[in-house]
């Protein structure tokens, strides 16, 4: 694929093995800056694993063996001596289900700031407000910032997780089916935020919904059983797929 934009993430020969399963096979992929790249593929094809490799959450699973290189700003993050905390702060993660931290709404957002060593009260307050606004949650929670985050609705929790992720000032947002647990209205809100956020951030989005891919994607990567089958601009892959597998998937799923 011809990429005119500068890639922010370059994945080279990435292989992930589980004890009895070759999960990702020779992944070679550039992810362009300030675009939304959508990872598409059937269940179990390795989308989540690919996403987790990007911020080394795969470290949590000792049974997974990872080989290859992932460069972010020319920094090989798979290098064992890299500071994982720093790498992870370059990426905000939005998971399939929101996991609010067991603390207040305010502290959820301030958590990342605290980890970064930002503790000055007025700055923390200003930033928390800023990120809650960016995630389109501020108006709904501004009167109960200090109540428990777990009392929010699922849709609100997901936006809180977005705000929390933005607070560490990442370059990339990794989103793993972020709307699959949400109602249509919350889904729309998140999608709308994504479109605004791509001005400042690079977004890698996993989704099952072809329509969502059409609405949001600049680039689409189609993965099948751990292999990249086809990738390119959204209209090429979804409207004129070259590969048989992609054609099947697209025609079955629309």
């Amino acid at each position, binding site marked *: 694929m011809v990429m005119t934009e500068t890639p922010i993430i370059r994945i080279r020969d990435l292989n992930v093995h589980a004890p009895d399963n070759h999960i990702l096979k020779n992944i070679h992929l550039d992810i362009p800056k300030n675009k939304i790249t959508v990872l598409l593929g059937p269940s179990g094809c390795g989308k989540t694993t690919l996403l987790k490799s990007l911020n080394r959450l795969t470290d949590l699973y000792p049974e997974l063996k990872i080989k290859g290189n992932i460069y972010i700003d020319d920094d090989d993050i798979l290098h064992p001596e890299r500071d994982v*905390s720093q790498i992870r702060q370059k990426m*905000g993660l939005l998971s399939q289900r929101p996991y609010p931290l067991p603390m207040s709404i305010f502290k959820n957002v301030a958590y990342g700031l605290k980890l970064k060593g930002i503790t000055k009260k007025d700055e923390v307050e200003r930033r928390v407000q800023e990120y809650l606004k960016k995630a389109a949650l501020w108006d709904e929670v501004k009167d109960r910032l200090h109540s428990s985050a777990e009392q929010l609705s699922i849709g609100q929790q997901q936006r809180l*997780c977005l705000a929390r992720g933005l607070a560490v000032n990442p370059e990339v947002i990794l989103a793993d089916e972020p709307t699959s647990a949400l109602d249509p209205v919350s889904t729309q809100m998140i999608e709308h935020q994504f479109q605004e956020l791509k001005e400042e951030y690079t977004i890698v989005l996993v989704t099952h919904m072809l329509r969502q891919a059409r609405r949001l994607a600049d680039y689409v990567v189609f993965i099948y059983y751990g292999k990249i089958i086809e990738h390119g601009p959204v209209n090429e892959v979804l409207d004129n797929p070259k590969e048989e597998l992609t054609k099947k998937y697209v025609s079955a799923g629309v």
Partner: protein
Amino acid sequence: MISALKIKQTGSRFWVDRISTTWMLAGLFFILVVPFAIFLGLLIKALPLLYDQSLWAILSGTEWSPMRGNFGFLPFIVGSVLVTVLAVCFSAPTSLMAAIYITQFAPKRFLKLVHPVIDILAGIPSVIYGVWGVLTIIPLVAGLASWFGISSTGYSILAGGIVLAVMSTPYVLNMLIEVFRSMPIGLKEASLSLGSTYWECIKHVLLRKGLSGILAAFALGVSNALGNTIAVLMVVGNRVQFPSNVFEAGYPIPALIANNYGEMMSIPLYDSALMFAALLLFVMVTFFNFASRYFIQKYEV
């Protein structure tokens, strides 16, 4: 619900259903009533003492001489509380650290190894812990005391606390392991992906998330320690006094009852006083359970 079942089911199945329902209700009733029955039974038996002396005098009295009709319970209360506090101080941090290590850091097969060990520890009869305490802890404590320049036989509050701590650890640890194992991995991923270290994640997120479960585990340890009798009785020295340091002997309430019940030699009110001791223990444990339940619910998330 029950009437709907009645219509559908006929013959023997109907009766089986009826009987098992009745049986379950009876079981439930029994479980709910037994504590009240025990409480009332103890209260009635303790009443003669309560008529004779004021409650305050009994609870705050320091002299215990049944022959002269002096039944001061304060030394026993202090003994029980001290032994329990020591036991929890030893077992709570150890169990918590062990549970964190086992669930978060150790390889998975380690847990498979730990579970049978915990079961074995939990299954050892109390009296064996007592014997073990006498054989190994007592000399150790005596040695430790002399190292501090205090003379002690070793039969002491400290020995009681140590033996109790070892005994309650399997229960507390088991519960704590469950608390940490039931923590969703997504929560850990959330904290780590924000750039926290593993330790920060444990400290700020997992411990907070598990707080109510952790408190419940500690509470179980306390109840366990408060009521334990045989093992403590064997190592704690059983002298009616206020221990001035942990190397001195004490006399917890369960030991008082176990040592003297059946040998009251028709001393007036002695029988009633021992029943009062049982009542006191019952109330202490119940009160503690309610208090801990309050905190557990408060920190539920």
